[in-house]
């Protein structure tokens, strides 16, 4: 209501954030788990006096540096950029509540970046012990930055007592804080193994690969078994409505979850067969396939987590269209067009009704429905007449989709309905 709305064609802002976030999460979890992987692998190489593993971990660390420090860091900034563009009101709320959390995360980020560069540049310059300490510093800083950011991210779904107390700590240590942290840490370790398998096929000569592959598989296999357990724990810490959505309240959400589980099982099998038992058969192609499958699991997980938050962006505090729940009654009184700052039409009359409807839709619905794109509105109303659509809008929260209550006036609902009904008319003409 407060900010201008930036419409992203076809995929919509939600998916834009989703895509950027998933890419970032894929790299940033590796940045955490991979840190542990580096130090433990380095220790193993010294302990067994194993030149193959040592050479491998050195080269792997170069890949690690180039991926995390450039791609990881910038996709992180990209999330900032996109949420500020798509959800400025929510971003503003988060930054007002948690700016010091982010400032603390930034300290860890800073240490992380310095440590990983030095770790890479000092391979042959420092004694083993000091080099390892720098590696540990990297891993601890990376882990702690996850420990912080997890508080802010889990807050969005379960703000818990913050709703009443408005206290930083209540928001930070919210009901899903621990369970989601557990999911993240286990995921980070699995990611470390998946990346390890892939780089092994590029770095290590075929005849020497066996040990490295087997070693990397041990990072994946047991933790793939723990992942469903922590995910289940996470599920049980959710409030009722998100649980309901995940179990089929919105069909695509439960479908996504099921696909995620199946793909997870597939990854486990592939790694077990080719990464652990039959390492001779583990090729670059299989490494890449496992990587893509891993990406799809994350994709599923993130999508589910985002979808079960409907219709909120910050649960019980703000709808995904930026409306703050506390302000609902005031807005309902005067309608959304008058409350919104960035619309040209304030009063509806017969001439501007369609245009007003278009504006109303943009304000209230476009965060979830893109015309001709994501969650397209056209097929959802195709059989309905104008009055029915208006009636549905006035009663939005009672239809499928877990939509927000409508904060507009009846005249605004009619205007939106009139504009939407135009699509049905166009449809009929074409046929």
């Amino acid at each position, binding site marked *: 209501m407060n900010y201008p709305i*930036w*419409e992203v064609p076809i995929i919509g802002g939600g998916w834009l954030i989703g895509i950027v976030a998933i890419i970032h999460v894929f790299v940033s979890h590796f940045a955490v788990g991979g840190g542990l992987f580096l130090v433990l692998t380095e220790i193993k*190489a010294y302990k067994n006096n194993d*030149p193959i593993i040592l050479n491998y971990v050195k080269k792997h660390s170069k890949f690690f540096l180039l991926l995390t420090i450039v791609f990881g860091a910038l996709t992180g900034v990209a999330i900032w950029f996109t949420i500020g563009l798509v959800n400025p009101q929510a971003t503003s709320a988060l930054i007002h509540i948690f700016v010091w959390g982010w400032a*603390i995360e930034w*300290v860890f980020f800073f240490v992380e970046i310095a440590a990983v560069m030095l770790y890479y540049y000092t391979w042959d310059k420092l004694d083993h012990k000091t080099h390892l300490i720098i590696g540990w510093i990297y891993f601890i800083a990376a882990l702690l930055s996850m420990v912080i950011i997890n508080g802010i991210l889990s807050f969005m779904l379960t703000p818990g007592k913050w709703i009443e107390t408005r206290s*930083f700590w209540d928001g930070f240590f919210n009901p899903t804080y621990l369970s989601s942290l557990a999911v993240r840490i286990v995921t980070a370790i699995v990611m470390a193994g998946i990346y390890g398998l892939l780089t092994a096929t590029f770095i290590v000569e075929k005849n020497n690969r066996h040990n490295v592959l087997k070693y990397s598989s041990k990072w994946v296999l047991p933790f793939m078994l723990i992942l469903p357990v922590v995910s289940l724990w996470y599920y049980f810490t959710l409030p009722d409505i998100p649980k309901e959505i995940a179990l089929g309240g919105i069909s695509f959400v439960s479908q996504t979850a099921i696909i995620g589980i199946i793909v997870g099982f597939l990854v486990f099998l592939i790694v077990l067969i080719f990464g652990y038992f039959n390492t001779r058969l583990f090729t670059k192609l299989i490494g890449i396939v496992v990587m893509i499958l891993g990406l799809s699991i994350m994709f599923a997980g993130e999508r589910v987590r985002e979808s079960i938050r409907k219709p909120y962006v910050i649960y019980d505090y703000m709808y995904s269209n930026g409306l703050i729940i506390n302000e609902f009654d005031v807005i309902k009184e005067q309608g959304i067009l008058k409350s919104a700052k960035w619309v040209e039409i304030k009063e509806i009359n017969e001439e501007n009704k369609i245009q007003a409807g278009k504006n109303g839709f943009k304000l209230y619905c476009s965060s979830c429905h893109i015309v001709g794109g994501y969650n397209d509105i056209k097929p959802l109303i195709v059989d309905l007449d104008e009055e029915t659509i208006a009636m549905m809008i006035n009663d939005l929260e009672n239809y499928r989709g877990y939509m927000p209550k409508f904060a507009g006036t009846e005249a605004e609902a009619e205007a939106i309905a009139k504009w939407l009904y135009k699509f049905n008319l166009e449809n009929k003409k074409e046929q």
Partner: protein
Amino acid sequence: METQVIIPDIDPISVPAPIWLLKILLLLTFTLHILAMNVAVGGGLIAAVTEFLGKKNNSQNHFELSRSISKMLPPFTAFTITLGVAPLLFLQVLYGNFFYTSTILIAWPWLSIIVIFILAYYGYYLYSFRWEKLEGKRFVVVLISALLLAVIGLIYTQNIVLMLTPEKWKEIYFNNPHGTSLNLSDPTVIPRYLHFMVAALAVAGLVVIMWGIKKIKINESLGKWGIRYGILWFIVPTLLNIIIGLWFLISLPKNFIMLFMGENIYATVYFMIALLAMFVSLILMFVALNSAKPLAKIIIGKVFLLLTIVMMVLMRHELREAYLQPYLNWDKVQVEPQWGVITIFIILLLAGIVTVIWMLKKSFGQKSNVDPVELS
């Protein structure tokens, strides 16, 4: 329709720190960000010119220098982002309602920063890691990367200026709500931007001087050449920047020019000190150019340049407050400091700095003692 200016309301959630603390942190981290950016962008441009001259004159000195710069570019690019994230945080708490709005108007150019940055960053790594192998292509690789980074600065300046001019928002948004607008038509944008970029060359010139000083112990003629070359990179851009700075000043609306001419005591004093310090550093560098023992002059010159930069940052801040003065009343902003978390932040910040210094000391401080049983 009415012509009033639309400004989004301030967030209903109170600001979790005193405004002065946030402003100090904003200005401090911004200064560091700009210094790192200067080396990343200015250094890249100097490297490109140096590659070119080296090839043209077949000069080993030039290649020695460009090889050294190539190793500096990736870490300083990393510092530029890392030190950019912090002011991005504080800017949003302080000026979020202005910043988010202007960003939405230029959404796509703004997002393109990410892609441009990734390309340029990998370009720098390519230049650094493959320096020998690239040979003739080095000039192109480093030039393109540096120019890409410089484009990011132009997008930043457009946004940072657009957020200060809410009068323009309405027309821009209602003509084009798709987020593909730019803000190049503002007469202050180009001079403001050039002011930053030309300064970047001068600051990177100082880094070249430092390199020369370090080399003198190993190879005297190379070191001396480096110092002279660096001083030229400092002096020429700085002279040019006097003109650009003036251009920037007169491009501002009249009432803002007057701020620096006595109307606002802080702005005026900062301006005077900045000018004075700049002239002192220029003169010292001129003298150092033909001096047999330039070291002391260079160091004092650097201190004065740093003073100039700090004053410029403060002037820029006064200018921002003046732009926003009709739209932003700090007394109306609700503040509820989270002192507990702030304390934790400060302790961790100090611990973080100590940790980084320790690591740097270990890595560069002592002679490397490579393990006798070299495994690889």
